[in-house]
């Protein structure tokens, strides 16, 4: 389980996160934020495994990623 949160008001709509998601889960919203950009959002949270590549690519620290801790065998 993973959870990705987008801080919409900080997003400048550069779309770099959409480029790096290995599963192509990130798209740009239809609506605009207060800065006038279409903020990034995730389409299907269940498919996300929390790799955090999107967060590492984001120049504006819009994205936070949480994930279940790996079970130690």
């Amino acid at each position: 389980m993973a959870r990705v949160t987008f801080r919409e008001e900080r997003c400048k709509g550069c779309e770099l996160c959409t480029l790096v998601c290995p599963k192509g889960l990130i798209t740009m919203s239809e609506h605009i934020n207060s800065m006038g950009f279409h903020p990034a959002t995730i389409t299907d949270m269940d498919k996300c495994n929390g790799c955090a590549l999107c967060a590492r690519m984001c120049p504006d620290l819009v994205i936070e990623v949480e994930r279940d801790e790996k079970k130690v065998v």
Partner: protein
Amino acid sequence: MKKVFTRPESFNDIPMHYCPGCTHGIIHRLVAETIDELNMVDRAIGVAPVGCSVFIYNYIDCDMYQASHGRAPAVATGVKRVVPDGVVFTYQGDGDMAAIGTAEIVHAAARGENITVIFVNNAVYAMTGGQMAPTTLMGQKTTTTPHGRESDANGYPVKMAEMLSTLDGSSYISRVSVHDPKNINKAKKSIKKAFEVQMENKGFTMVEVLSICPTNWGLSPKESVKWLDENMIPYYPLGEYKVPAEV
């Protein structure tokens, strides 16, 4: 659930002024992550340049100076000599460091000043409106080379990492890029290594970071990362140019 990615502690929670897609934000974050990981926020002293990244002093929560255009390595020299326990770094663009500040950077490296330089190379003067920089590639269109850079009139791009690695005073010199997550991880490791080398008093360290400038390149951010990969990396090969013997 455990947070696997969040804002570094030493990175202030304010909106950044950069254009959409500008990778200065990523490079700032890597510096802040390094400051956190090396637990040196009380020791770190940064020197801001003139250029787009002048406002770095608002974003990273450590002591900061702001130097005249290109003079950051000279200011950092003074800071380091007065506060030898400080971890001193400059953050400079290519217009700042490779053009107006060439004398300062070359002699700081030649003297083996124990400072770390983060050199952001986006092949253009960004803040002033996209004029040709010393690092502009051959054929690249800028506002002062509207038909593309030509060797007859404009000479050839300067390779700072290669140049500074020939000096005996330099200790760790590398070139990295931030156009994809894999390279961002490598850039992080390189920046951390440069700070560690400084903390071991081994001499001058510089990390050149290839960066995108969608606004002045006239491309979208997505096109810009592709352009960097296809055009800048062949001319500016990535890698470590100089590593101290024991590291």
